[in-house]
C-alpha cells in the first residue's frame, strides 16, 4: 500500500478560463461552453477528440449531464465531481489519473460555478438534512477564528496583524487590477480595506474573497505526447489531496493557528515533486486566499515561512508580485473572484501563463524556476479538504 508519484507522466496541453465576474447575462451552461471552447481551440481539437470528461461543480449542476447537455457530448463518459473548494482540482485529478493509468488518451477537466443567481449575500452552501444542531455560521465567521488565535499564540500586536491582513488584500487587488479576467480590477487603498464594513470577527467585507460566476477547463494527455499538441505544455509534477476528519472543533489539541490538512498535503506534494525548499524552488504559488488571515496562515502551512513569522514576511513584501515568492499574482480568490468549482483550474491556468511567460503586465520575474504550486482549501479551520498541485514547464 502507498501513494505513488505521477510526476511527469501527464501534461496539460491546453486550457480555457472565462473572466470571473457577476455574469448576470450568462448561465452556467454558457460559461462552460466558453471555457471548453477556448481550451479546444488552443489545441486545435474538437470535443469528439476528448475521450472522457470530468465536470467539477459545487452547486451549479448535478451529474455529468450538466456538461454533456450544453456541449452536446454524444456517447462520452462524463462525470460530475464535488469536493468543496477543491472541486475544480478534483476534476483535474480524475482526468490525470485516467490518462496516467492508460484508460484514455485525452481527457478534459472542466470547472463551472454560477453563484450570482441566488440573490443572497455571500456563498450559499448546500446543506444535507439534519437535526438543526449544527451552528449555522457563515464562511467568514469560520475563518475569522484564525486571526485572534494566531495573534494570541505568537504574541502579535493587533495593529501588526491587521496590517498584514490588509497587505494581503492590497497585494491581491493590485495583482488583479492587471488581470483582464479578474472579477475586481481595481487597486484598493489600505485605508479603504481597513474601513470596510464588519462581516465576522475582525473581518471586513474587503477581507473576503469575491463571490463570482466563472468556468475554466484543461485538456490532458500523456506527457510524451504533449508536444504533438502544443509548444507550451504544463507537466503535472504532483497532485495531493488530504481530506480532514472534521475533528478540529472537538480536539483540544487543535488551536486554530494552522490547517493540519494543508501541512500533510503539502508534505506529500513536495515529496512527489522532489521539492525540498519550496520558497526558492517555486516560481509562484496560487493559494486559497478566501479570507485575508487564511493566506497568512497558509504561508506557514505550505512551508514558505517559519511558524509565527508569515505576518512579518507578508508585510515585508516577500509574497508580492516582485517578491521572493510571488503568491496569487493573478489576484487570487480575493480579486480574481471565487466561483467555487472553477477556482482550482483557474489557478492552474495562471501557472500555465506565468511559467510560459505569457502573463503580460503581471508577469513574475521568477518564471525561470519552472515550477508552480496551486492549493485549494474547502471547509473551515478544523474541518477541511486540501488539494495541492505542483506543475512545471519542463520535464525532469
Amino acid at each position, binding site marked *: 500500500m502507498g501513494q505513488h508519484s505521477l510526476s511527469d507522466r501527464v501534461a496539460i496541453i491546453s486550457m480555457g478560463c472565462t473572466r470571473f465576474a457577476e455574469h448576470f447575462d450568462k448561465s452556467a451552461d454558457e460559461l462552460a461552453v466558453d471555457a471548453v471552447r477556448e481550451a479546444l481551440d488552443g489545441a486545435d481539437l474538437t470535443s469528439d477528440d476528448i475521450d472522457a470528461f470530468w465536470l467539477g461543480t459545487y452547486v451549479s449542476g448535478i451529474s455529468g449531464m450538466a456538461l454533456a447537455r450544453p456541449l452536446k457530448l454524444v456517447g462520452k463518459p462524463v462525470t460530475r465531481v464535488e469536493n468543496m473548494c477543491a472541486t475544480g482540482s478534483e476534476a483535474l485529478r480524475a482526468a490525470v489519473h485516467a490518462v496516467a493509468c492508460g484508460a484514455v488518451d485525452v481527457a478534459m477537466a472542466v470547472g463551472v460555478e454560477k453563484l450570482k443567481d441566488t440573490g443572497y449575500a455571500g456563498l450559499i452552501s448546500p446543506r444535507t438534512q439534519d437535526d438543526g444542531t449544527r451552528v449555522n455560521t457563515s464562511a467568514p*465567521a469560520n475563518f475569522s477564528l484564525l486571526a485572534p488565535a494566531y495573534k494570541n499564540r505568537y504574541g502579535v500586536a493587533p495593529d501588526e496583524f491587521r496590517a498584514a491582513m490588509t497587505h494581503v488584500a492590497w497585494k491581491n487587488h493590485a495583482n488583479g487590477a492587471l488581470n483582464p479576467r479578474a472579477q475586481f480590477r481595481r487597486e484598493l487603498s489600505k485605508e479603504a480595506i481597513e474601513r470596510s464594513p464588519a462581516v465576522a470577527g475582525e473581518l471586513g467585507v474587503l477581507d473576503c474573497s469575491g463571490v463570482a460566476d466563472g468556468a475554466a477547463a484543461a485538456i490532458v494527455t500523456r506527457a510524451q505526447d504533449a508536444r504533438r499538441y502544443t509548444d507550451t505544455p504544463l507537466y503535472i509534477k504532483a497532485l495531493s489531496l488530504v481530506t480532514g476528519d472534521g475533528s478540529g472543533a472537538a480536539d483540544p489539541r487543535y488551536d486554530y493557528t494552522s490547517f493540519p490538512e494543508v501541512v500533510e498535503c503539502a508534505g506529500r506534494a513536495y515529496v512527489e515533486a522532489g521539492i525540498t525548499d519550496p520558497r526558492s524552488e517555486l516560481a509562484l504559488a496560487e493559494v486559497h486566499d478566501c479570507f485575508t488571515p487564511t493566506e497568512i496562515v497558509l504561508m506557514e502551512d505550505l512551508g514558505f515561512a517559519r511558524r509565527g513569522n508569515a505576518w512579518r514576511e507578508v508585510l515585508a513584501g516577500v509574497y508580492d508580485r516582485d517578491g521572493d515568492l510571488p503568491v496569487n499574482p493573478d489576484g487570487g480568490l480575493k480579486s480574481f473572484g471565487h466561483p467555487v468549482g472553477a477556482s482550482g483550474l483557474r489557478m492552474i491556468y495562471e501557472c500555465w501563463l506565468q511559467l510560459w511567460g505569457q502573463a503580460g503586465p503581471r508577469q513574475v520575474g521568477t518564471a525561470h524556476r519552472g515550477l508552480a504550486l496551486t492549493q485549494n482549501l474547502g471547509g473551515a479551520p478544523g474541518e477541511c479538504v486540501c488539494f495541492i498541485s505542483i506543475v512545471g514547464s519542463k520535464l525532469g
Partner: protein
Amino acid sequence: MTASANETAVHHSSGIVGYHAHLPAYRLDRGEIAAAVGASSRGTRCVAGYDEDTTTLAVAAALPVVSRRESAVGSIWLATTDPVYADKTNATTVHAALDLPPGIVAADLGAAVRSGIVALLAAARDGGLAVLSDRRGGSVGGTDERDGGDAAAAFLFGDQAPLALVTGTASVTAEFIDRWRAPGTPEGGAWEERFGEQRYAELTRHLLSTLTGAGLDLIGISRFAIAGINARAVRTVAGTVRKATGAALEGGDLVGLLGNAGAAQAGLALADLLDAANPGETLLLISLADGADALVLRATDAIADGRGDPLRAQAARGVTIGYPQYLLWRGRVAGERSRRPDPDRPSAPFAWRNRRYKLSMAGGQCRKCAALQFPLPRVCYQCHAIDEFDSVSASGQTARIVTFTVDRLAFSPSPPLISAIIEFEQGGRLQCELTDVRLPLRVGDPVIPSFRRGATVDGIHNYLWKARPVYQEAPAPSGDAGPEREN
C-alpha cells in the same frame, strides 16, 4: 367545589424536596412601554430573550431541581398560558432536556392561569415535578404588556428530606368572567376589576373556612403569598388573609419588580415564600384564578440548605433592554429579513435519532483513550476505536470559551450570531452558539449550556443547547448598551 386538607387528602409525597425559580436575563422599564402610547407607568418587568419560550424557561427552572435526582421524579406537570405547541405535548420537550427516565408521565396543564397552582397540587399528590412557566404579553403599550412578566419556577415533591412538608391543600371552583383571551393571541380581555375583586373575596372566605374546617389553625401561619392576575383582587385578598391569620405577606412587591408571570406567578410567590421561610414556619400560598386554591406547607430544618439561587438575588441582576428590542424579539414588529436563505426545518427522524445530544446534551467518552466527544460518535477521533463509548452528559457542566466569533452574515433571529468553541471542565470540546452575551467576550470566559429555541420553520421549533456566559457581577448600568451591542 372540592376541598381537602391534611387529614383527608391522599399524599404520596410528603413535601417539596427541591425548588428553583428562574428569571430570564432581561428587564424592561414599564415607563418606556407606557410612553409609547402616551401613558406612564412605574417598575420593571422580566423579559425572555428572543430564543426563550415557556418550554426553555421551564427547562432552566427545572434543571437545578432535578440534577442528580433524576430517578426520583415521579411525573412532570407543566403549566403555562403560552404553550409553544398545541396538539403536541410541551412537557415531553422538558422531559427530554432534563434527561429523565422514560417511565413517567409528562403532561401540559393549561392554557389558563389556574394551571400554575394545579400543577403544584398535582405534583404534590404523585411525587412529581411541577414546572410553572410563562411568557406574558398583551396589546402593544397596554397594561398587560407592561405588567406581565416572563419567568418559570420548578418544584419537586417527594419523601427524601423535604424542605417543606405539605400540611394541607384546598380548592374552591367558580365560573365567572374576569380575565379571558383567545388561544394564540397576546391581547387578552378584562372585565371591570371590581367584579372579579368581589368574587375572589367571597371565594377566599370560602377557602379559609374550608382550611379551618379541615383542622388548620390560621393563627399558626407565619407567612403567606397570593398569586393572581386581577391585581385589585390580590390586594384585597391579601388584606383579608392578613387580618384572618396575623401572618406576614411575602412577595407583595414581586409584581412591581418583575411583572406578573401568569401561570408561573404562583411559582414565583411560592419560591419567594420558601426563600424567606425559617424552619418550623407554616406557609400559605393562595392562587386566585377561576376559584381559589391553597397550598399549606411547613418548613423543615432542611430549608436553609435547600435554597439555590434565590429569586431576589436574580431579580437584582438583569440587563435592561429597550422597548423596540422587546417588540422585535416578540415578533410584534418585523425586522429586516436577512439576505441569507431561511434555515431548513429540522428533520424529525434525524432529531429523534440524535435526541441524546440535541435535547439532552449527552456525548460519549472513549473507553480506550478517554477522549470526550459530542454527540456520541461511532468512531473515536483520537484513537479510532469503534463503538467503544460510555455516555456522558454536559448538562450543567461549566465550560470555557476556547475561541469565538461574532458573525454578522449568518442568519439569526436576533443578529449577530455569536458562535464559539467551548471546552468543558470535565473535558470535551464542541462548537455551539452563545446566547445572553454581553460584549465584549473574552477567550477563557466561563459559560454553561443553556437550552434554547433556534429558528422556527413550518411551525417546528428547533430546540437545541447553546451556551451562555456566567456573569457573577452585576451588569454595568444599561441604557447606553443593549446586550447585542459592542462596546
